[in-house]
């Protein structure tokens, strides 16, 4: 029967739109077919997907059928749905990161003392980018969060351990600073 030849395709179309698992009994009732016919069509659909290694798979559980995606392709789906964000760090984020890298573990208050500006936003953005993480709490009033760098930080900068962080370049001495700033 022509109907039967098409059945596998009808089944596919219904499962596609349904999204949710579809009860086989509902299918037999609505399509006026026997359970055996439905199961046979499901077999055909499954082997079609398998033979071509299709992006879609037929999932069967209990007396339900559902379409889903082949897990082999998950990484591509993720790439598509959540592309890698390419961005560079802002100056303030980089400064904050540098302070944490060289002074870890350290608190936000310490960072702010050194930078002389509020650094909440920078810290949050570094946390979101997984460059720093909470490593504990300092045992003082308020028990402020201590931050340190992550393994991700090391890999971003192409080093394997913190000991590979370069020594700091020479910092102009304080006296010189006074001379230069007193001009204004």
């Amino acid at each position: 029967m022509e109907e039967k030849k098409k059945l596998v395709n009808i089944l596919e179309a219904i499962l596609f739109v349904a999204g949710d698992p579809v009860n086989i009994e509902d299918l037999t009732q609505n399509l006026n077919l026997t359970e055996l016919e439905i199961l046979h069509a499901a077999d055909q659909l499954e082997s079609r997907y398998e033979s071509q290694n299709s992006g879609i798979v037929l999932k069967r559980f209990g007396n339900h059928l559902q379409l889903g995606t082949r897990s082999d392709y998950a990484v591509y789906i993720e790439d598509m749905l959540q592309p890698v964000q390419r961005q560079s760090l802002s100056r303030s984020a980089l400064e904050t990161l540098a302070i944490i890298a060289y002074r870890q573990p350290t608190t936000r208050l310490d960072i702010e003392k050194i930078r002389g500006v509020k650094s909440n936003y920078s810290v949050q953005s570094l946390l979101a980018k997984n460059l720093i993480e909470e490593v504990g709490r300092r045992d003082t009033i308020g028990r402020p969060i201590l931050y340190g760098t992550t393994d991700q930080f090391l890999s971003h900068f192409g080093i394997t351990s913190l000991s590979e962080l370069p020594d700091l370049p020479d910092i102009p001495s304080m006296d010189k600073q006074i001379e230069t700033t007193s001009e204004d």
Partner: protein
Amino acid sequence: MSTLTLHLDQFEGPLDLLLFLVGKAKIDIKDIFISDITEQYIAAINAQNAWDMDDASDFIRMASTLLQIKSRALLPRQEPLPENDPEMILIRQLEEYAALKEVAQEMKGFETAAAKIHEKLPEEYPLPPLTFELTGLSLEGLTEAFANVLARLAERNAFDALPTTRRIVREEFTVPQLMGRIMKELRHHSVSFVSLLSEEMATREEVVTLFLAVLELLRTGKILCKQNKTYDDIIIRKTT
């Protein structure tokens, strides 16, 4: 053709109504002015009892155009009509509108066919945490950033220390300010007068003002002072 009971809101506008009348009369668009369509149009408008003002103005303006052309048609005229004659313009407009309605009708068919294609909702797909690819990161940049911060810090500290050398500023120190400084220092232990002065570079102004502050605190009974011998340092402590 007898009275038509038309509801104008069935029509998309005066052009739509005119086209309907043309179709009903089975005449060519070009012949509307020698037919009785103008009368039918006006009859249809007259039959309408409730008007939306916006629609009304469109329909009535068209009626006046039709009447104007019709009345002119009664007079002998020279042929052919110029391009910008209201009659020519209206005919072109009707032709264009008719063509448009035709394709719109075809598009309706497309729309109906396309509506038979069903789509699916997006899957709720569990995603890993956002990954960032950071560009322009280097170790040099990192150390440079840290060096910059430290340099700025040094600058800031230096700047904080500056007031003692910048005596040009009038009233660098005030008595209440230094009274505050004294009381703050006294919170935990007694202090000496010299230790209250800025490191090394105390100015005459500062010494005098600090001394006035001490006298004021003594007067109000907040502190006690002790001096072992003349010119010796003064030891200050809080009254208990």
